[in-house]
Each structure stands twice: as structure tokens, then as C-alpha cells.
């Protein structure tokens, strides 16, 4: 398959959907069918190429693959540079999966479909851009450009009661986070003194330990805010709930991963000594994320808020895995990023399907939905079992290595974090019971139709990914190990 390696596949993957996004905007206002088909083509293209990137990726060769560069601003050391390693390749694949799913479940958007489908492609491309960037400046460029479609989509198509508040809160938090991170990273780049924003070159520079200790928290915490780190997680549930279904899927499914991914790539990798110094604090915060996030989910009455807070809890596992700074923890974090991305996309897709039909998300009002939409109920149960960390599903094979890593780094944190597992079981089972089982309140909800075949394809597809990963973790683990091995080398072969 060497011819694939010779193609600038990542560049094509980013450029073509971008062209589709622009093309959709050029359509006449009021066109309904053309935007969704063009978006499907663009999203499908990104999905297809991301699949190729993931499966053609060579696990046995270290370093970045599918690298493609272009000197954009040589005077400032800024260039266009893309490539993936074992950590980012699954993330690119995840972006393809979630973007395509989001487009399909939004098929029937009636309100300004032209703008909606164009923005969602923009969002997908910018996220995929972050994951494949090998240049600090370019990474920030993609990160910030994503804010624009995100904000617009929440305030234009969001839940009327919360959309301005949620959109504003989310945007301000993310600005705060990225400003912190930007300040930190600019300091690091200038201290490195090689007049380059190229990540591969920056990795070669041994930064002074004092510099690392000073700037690591800026970069790591700044990015981790995007991943919902305690105590800066509050934007996430409000933002997820305010957003329309497809945006919730992308936000929780991939955007939160963007934050933690960048925290790993620019935080831990560039400043391994800083990471070792600050790891205990991150372990504490991440453990709070897991347990407190689960408790918050347990007391919610709104179906979508439950899933929103569950993301806060699950992202805590990713951060805990990172902070353990060892092979097991990093492997588990990589697995969890993928697993949680697919799981939460499935969750939010089904929340949207239920809400579209019942116009309520109140657990007290809902009931018996499994009789009306059995496949959606099954999909929710699968996602729920992933969320509970049930063996046989992807959540278990992700959280288990994280726990193993935590045992090596901070045994107490492992013992505390496990409480989160039981709380998660409680809120997931409660949600499943209240929404999908019991009596169907026909007098309140009226006629409820089953989900269309498009949605069924998405529910089945995402469920199969979650089960396949749970039963055959070695489908993805060796790829992630290729990525974590270089991080471990930087950390000094721990």
C-alpha cells in the first residue's frame, strides 16, 4: 500500500470537505436537498479517508506518518505541516465517524439547512486539522477556527431556553483555556530558541527544567479546560445541552478530545519534566472529575444533562491516564478517548431522537420508549454499558489500563476513582429504566414514531464499533501503543 503513503492523504482529507463546505454556502438560499447531500458527500469523504489513515497506519514504524509539509511563513518558522502518530490516527478516525454520524442524524433539519450543513463540515475539518497538525501555530489556527461554527450552531439551532447562555458560556471558557495555553506555548517556543513552530523540531529541544515547571500548568490546564477538567468543567454540560444534536455529538465526541489531545501533545510531550512535577495535582483534579462528575450526573433530571455530566466524569479517566505518565495509563487514555468519543456520540444521537419525538427530556415525563423505538433503546443500553465500564464493551478495555496505570502512580487515586464506576452504574440504569422501560405515558407524549432507517444505520454502526473494540481491544491498542511509546521515551523510559 505504499502508493497510499505517497499521497498527501491528510491534506486531501482536510481540503476536499472544506471545499464542500464552501460550495454549500454558495448554494441559493432556501435549497433543502442539495446542502444535505453535499454535506453527506463531504463528511463521507472525510470518514473514508480517516478510515484509510487508521487502517493503513503502520504500527511497527515509530514516528509520524503520512507527513506532508509546505513552507508557509518561513521567516517566522511557521509552516503547514500535517502527520499522524498512533495517538492521533484513532482520533482522526473518530472525527470521521462522529462527523458522518452527526450529518446523517441531522438529515431532516428544516431551519436554514444550507448554513447548518456548511458549518458542521467546517467544524469537522477544523477538528481533524487539530489532530493532524504538526505545527504549533497551525494547531492553534484550527483550534480557534472551530470556535466560530461551534458558537454559531449553538445559538442558531440550539435549545431555545439555553442556547444564548450555553453558547456564550462555552465560548468564553474555551477562549480562557486556549488563551492560557497560547501564552504558555508561546513562552515555550521562545525559550526553545529555534525560531520554529514545528512540533517535531521542538521535541528535540531539551527545555530547562525550571521553564518546564513554570509553563507546563498554563499549557496543560489551558487545554484541559477544553476537556472539562475540574473545576473548569461547567461549560461542558451547559454547552452540550444547549447545542443541537449533531453539535452535541461533535462537542462531546471529539471537541473534548481535542483539548486533552493538545494537552498531551504540547503539554506532556514538550515539557515532560513539568509533567512529572505537576502530575500529582492533575491526578487529584482528574479523580475529582470522575467521582464528582458521576455524582452530578446522578442527581440530574434532564436526560441530556445526565449525558453531559457523564462526559465530565469520563474525561476524568483520560486525564487520570495521562497524569499516571506510564505505559498502561497512557494506553488506557488513548483507548478511552476513542471509546468515549463513539459512546457519547451515540448517547447524544439517541437523546436527540427521543427529544425530537417527545419534546421533553425530563426523566419524570418519559417512559416506555423501548416499545416505540426498540433499536434506539438497544443503542442506548449499549452506550450505557460502555459508560458503566462493563466488560465486553469498549469502556472496560479503556478504563482497566487506566486503573492499572494509576495503581503504579497513585494507588489511592485508583481506589477513590473506582467509586465513580458504581455511581455511573446507578445513573445509567436509572436513566435506562426511566426513559426506555416502564409504562409509556401516551396521554402526555401522544404518538411517537420509530426512528427512520438512516438513524438505525448510525445506531447499529456506532454500537458495533463499541462492541468490537470491547471484544477485540487489540484492533486498536497496538496503534495507540505506537504513539505512547514515543511519549514514554520522552518521559525517560518509565
Amino acid at each position: 500500500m505504499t502508493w497510499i503513503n505517497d499521497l498527501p492523504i491528510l491534506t486531501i482529507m482536510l481540503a476536499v470537505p472544506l471545499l464542500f463546505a464552501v460550495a454549500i454556502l454558495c448554494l441559493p438560499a432556501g435549497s433543502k436537498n442539495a446542502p444535505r447531500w453535499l454535506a453527506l458527500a463531504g463528511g463521507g469523504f472525510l470518514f473514508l479517508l480517516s478510515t484509510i489513515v487508521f487502517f493503513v497506519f503502520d504500527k511497527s514504524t515509530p514516528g509520524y506518518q503520512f507527513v506532508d509539509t509546505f513552507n508557509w511563513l518561513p521567516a517566522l518558522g511557521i509552516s503547514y505541516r500535517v502527520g499522524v502518530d498512533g495517538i492521533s490516527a484513532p482520533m482522526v478516525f473518530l472525527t470521521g465517524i462522529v462527523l458522518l454520524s452527526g450529518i446523517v442524524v441531522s438529515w431532516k433539519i428544516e431551519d436554514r439547512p444550507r448554513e447548518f450543513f456548511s458549518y458542521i463540515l467546517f467544524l469537522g475539518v477544523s477538528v481533524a486539522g487539530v489532530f493532524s497538525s504538526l505545527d504549533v501555530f497551525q494547531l492553534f489556527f484550527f483550534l480557534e477556527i472551530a470556535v466560530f461554527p461551534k458558537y454559531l450552531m449553538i445559538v442558531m439551532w440550539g435549545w431555545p431556553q439555553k442556547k444564548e447562555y450555553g453558547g456564550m458560556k462555552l465560548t468564553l471558557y474555551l477562549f480562557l483555556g486556549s488563551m492560557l495555553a497560547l501564552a504558555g506555548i508561546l513562552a515555550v517556543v521562545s525559550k526553545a530558541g529555534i525560531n520554529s513552530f514545528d512540533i517535531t523540531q521542538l521535541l528535540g529541544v531539551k527545555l530547562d527544567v525550571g521553564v518546564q515547571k513554570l509553563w507546563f500548568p498554563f499549557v496543560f490546564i489551558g487545554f484541559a479546560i477544553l476537556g472539562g477538567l475540574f473545576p473548569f468543567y461547567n461549560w461542558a454540560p451547559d454547552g452540550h445541552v444547549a447545542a443541537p444534536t449533531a453539535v452535541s455529538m461533535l462537542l462531546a465526541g471529539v471537541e473534548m478530545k481535542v483539548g486533552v489531545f493538545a494537552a498531551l501533545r504540547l503539554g506532556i510531550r514538550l515539557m515532560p519534566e513539568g509533567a512529572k512535577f505537576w502530575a500529582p495535582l492533575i491526578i487529584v483534579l482528574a479523580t475529582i472529575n470522575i467521582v464528582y462528575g458521576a455524582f452530578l450526573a446522578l442527581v440530574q433530571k434532564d436526560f441530556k444533562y445526565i449525558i453531559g455530566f457523564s462526559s465530565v466524569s469520563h474525561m476524568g479517566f483520560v486525564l487520570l491516564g495521562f497524569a499516571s505518565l506510564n505505559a498502561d495509563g497512557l494506553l488506557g487514555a488513548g483507548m478511552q478517548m476513542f471509546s468515549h468519543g463513539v459512546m457519547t456520540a451515540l448517547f447524544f444521537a439517541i437523546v436527540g431522537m427521543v427529544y425530537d419525538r417527545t419534546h421533553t427530556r425530563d426523566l419524570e415525563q418519559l417512559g416506555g420508549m423501548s416499545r416505540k423505538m426498540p433499536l434506539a433503546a438497544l443503542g442506548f443500553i449499549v452506550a450505557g454499558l460502555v459508560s458503566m465500564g462493563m466488560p465486553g464493551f469498549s469502556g472496560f478495555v479503556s478504563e482497566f489500563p487506566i486503573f492499572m496505570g494509576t495503581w503504579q502512580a497513585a494507588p489511592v487515586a485508583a481506589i477513590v476513582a473506582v467509586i465513580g464506576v458504581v455511581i455511573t452504574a446507578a445513573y445509567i440504569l436509572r436513566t435506562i429504566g426511566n426513559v426506555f422501560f416502564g409504562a409509556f405515558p401516551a396521554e402526555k407524549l401522544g404518538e411517537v414514531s420509530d426512528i427512520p432507517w438512516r438513524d438505525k444505520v448510525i445506531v447499529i454502526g456506532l454500537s458495533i464499533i463499541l462492541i468490537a473494540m470491547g471484544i477485540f481491544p487489540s484492533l486498536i491498542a497496538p496503534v495507540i501503543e505506537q504513539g505512547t511509546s514515543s511519549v514514554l521515551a520522552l518521559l525517560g523510559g518509565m
Partner: protein
Amino acid sequence: MNWLIDNILLVVLFLPTLGALILLCLPGSKSRLLLWTALGISLIPLAFTVVMLLRFNYSAEGYQFMADYQWYAAIQSSLKLGVDGISLPMVLLTTLLTPLAVLASFKISQNLKAYLILFLLLETGSLGVFVSLDLLMFFVFWEVGLVPMYFLINQWGGENRNYASLKFILFTMTGSLGLLLATQLIGVVSGTYDLVQVVAKWNALDQPLFGIPIATVKTIAFWAFAIAFAVKVPIWPFHTWLPDAHTEAPTAGSMILAGVLLKLGAYGFLRFVLPFFPEQSAHFAGALAILATLAIVLGAFGAYGQKDFKRLVAYSSINHMGMVVLAIAAAAAAAGTPDAASAVNGSVLLMFSHGVAAAGMFFLVGVIYDQTHTRDLTRLGGFWQKTPVYGGILIFTSMAALGLPGLSGFVSEFLIVSGSLPVFTVLTAVAMLGLLFTGLYTLKAIRDVLHGPFNVEWAGHLNDISKRETAVMVPLMLFMIGLGIWPRLLLDIINAAVKHIF
């Protein structure tokens, strides 16, 4: 054919899953087709288990039919399978009870397809626990079995099913948290999850871990394991989920719950706790024996106090499983002596014979319930005249459960008592007094159902046990009498493992 023999455990383990996938593709409205397919598929693992019993080498030490498959190399875990004389009878129990549970479900009408799929998945989960030789895989299967059982109770259960199913899963999951943590700890410390290697490496540890003396770490890990298994057995005072789960579960669900799932906990003690923590097991055996004795005595009292037929049988499970645990405690305290061997032989045999008898009892409760829609013992009575065959079978099965000589329960309880008496004299004596109450509640159940005045409420619509229902009971009764008369049928296999381990 050679491939089949080399991979026989893999085939037995995943055939039910394959069956579940086949059922998934069949139309949900054809209930006969679904039932016969499920029954047919679940008979194949039983046939293969018989093949394994016939080919089993009684004189070899260690595990047989071993196979190792890649699973999760990144954390040194693989799907390692194998059976010995302790696990093979449990495999037989599982593969025997699953087809009978399917046969017991012919009257289920609501969402039959999902129901049967869950039973087949439950079989894979339970079998996995018995055949895994990898600690992580063991945990995987241990938890996997919870989900089907939860939904079986939650969807096909009685009125109070939401409460009972949630209690079941939260009790078991919370109990398993310590097991999860201890599994991770052992895996991290040993660098492998392979059971044989873990036993060697874990026992060889003598340096402090995390700055804590190794003995303390091992004691904590011991209790983590012990509590997880104690909840599952269940040992007093962790038993309160069981009567609720049984009362609400559908008949076939109760059969598997009492017949197979309770054995998982006892098996965990034998396979993991005693080999991993020999010193701690010996040290805390007394505490375990006290809890077991309490389970025997209080379980019997609890059973006697019930008005609900099914709850009575549920409490009787606590009573009988207490005997199993008493034997395990005795074996832990007196490891290496003939007493320990006798006790373990008895406990494994009792696990099997209780599995058969309890499944039969729950089924017989279900036969009555299907016709009367009540399990209230005060409303039953005088059924023997109307249903003589049923009455005979009920008495036969109760006597097997009670431990009447000549039936399966007797030999195992005799072995347990003779093994435990020298070790825990007083406790065993108390437990034997508890057995008196076992007789009491068994006779009470028989009296309330079969004797006394006939409740005219049921006049005219009470039929004797049907052919299909008899077909469920016949294999069980054959085992009850077979093991009673010729216990070597299983004891030889059990002893083949016990003499090497204990």
C-alpha cells in the same frame, strides 16, 4: 475433528454466543422456531461437555483441554482456557441447566427473542468464569453475566422487578469493586494475569508495597476478593439481594441464578482466594466459618418463616450454600490435611447437587405459579390429590435438597461434615442443628402445598404436571438419584483435582 478437540473449550464457551447471534437474525414472531433453535443450540455445549468428561485424564495434574488465544497483549492478558476436576463439574452444571431453562420457558410470550438471547449470553458469561485461566478474563466473564440476569429480572420479572433487579446488580457490582481493584493490583504487581504465574509470583512477594507491609496489602486484597465472592454466594450478611432477586425473577431465571450463578462465588473462593492467599485464608477461616454457620442457621430460620413458596426456596439456597462455604473455610484452616480434602470434595459435590436440586425446586414453584398465579403458601394446599405426579416429583426433589441418604445431597453433606467437624467442632455441630431446621422448612413447604385442605379456589383449573414440564425434571432427578447411589460419577473427577491442590 482434531481442531475441535484442541479448541473444545473455546467452542463450548462461545457456541451460546453464536446461538444468540443466530437467534438475533430469526423473525421475532415465530416463537416455536426460536424456542427449538435455542434448545437445539444449547444442547451442543452439553454434548461437548460430555465428550470432555469422557476424555478427561483422571491421573494428570493441573488443567486439561488448555488453549491460549491472543486478546489484549498490551496489558499482558490473553484468553487462556482450561478445566480441572473442580471446574469441569461446574461446566457440566451450566451446560445442563441452560437447555432445561430454555425448556422451562415455553410459556414466555413477551419478547421471547430477547429473552432467549439473554439466556444464551448468560451461559457464555457463566462458563467463562469456570474455564478462564486468566485473572482478567475471569473478571470480564464475572461481570458480563450480570447484564443478562439484570435484564431478565428487570423485563420478565414480577411486580417488584425494578427494585429487585437494581438491588441485584448494585449489590454485585459494589461487591465486585474490591475484586476489580485487587485484580488490577495483582496484575500490576505480577506483570501478568496468567493464573498459574500469578499464584507463583504473588505468593513469592515479600517486600513492602507502596510503603505498606506486604502482609497488610495481602490481607486487604484477601478481603476484597472474599467480599466479592461472599456477596455472590451469598454469605450472611451479604445475602439480602438474593430473596428479592429470586422472588421477582422469571422461573428459568431463578433456575440459573440458584443453579449456576451462586456457584460462581463459591468457585471463586476455591480457585482464587485459597491459592492466592493461603496464609490469610487460614488466618480468617474462623471468621468465614462463623458467617457460614450463621448463613446455615439463619437461612433455615428465614426459610421457615416465609409465606411465599419461592422466597422459602430462595432462603433454602442461603442455607445450603452456607454448607459449601463452611467446607471451604475448613479446607482453608486445615490446608494439606485429609480433612481439607474431604471438605473440598464435599463442597464441590454439594455445589453440583444443590445446583441440580435448587433448579428443580424453583422450576416446581414455577409450575404451580403458572396455574394459580400465587405463591402464597397459605392459599395453596391439598394439591397431592389433584396433582399426584407433581406431588411425587416435589417430594423427591425436596428430599434430594434436604440430604436424604440415597439422593445426591446426602453424600456431599456427609463429606463436608466429616471434613469440617475436626476443624471447627462447635461450629459444625451448630450447623448440624441448622440442618434440623432444613428438614423443618422442607416439610413445612411440602405440607403447605401438598397436604391439608384443598383450596376450592383452584377447583377445576388445576392440572397435573405436563409432559414438557416433566421433561425438565427428569434429567435433574436422574442426577439426584444417580449421584446419590453412585457419587463416584463426579467425585472421582473432583478428587482428581482436590488431591493435587488441597
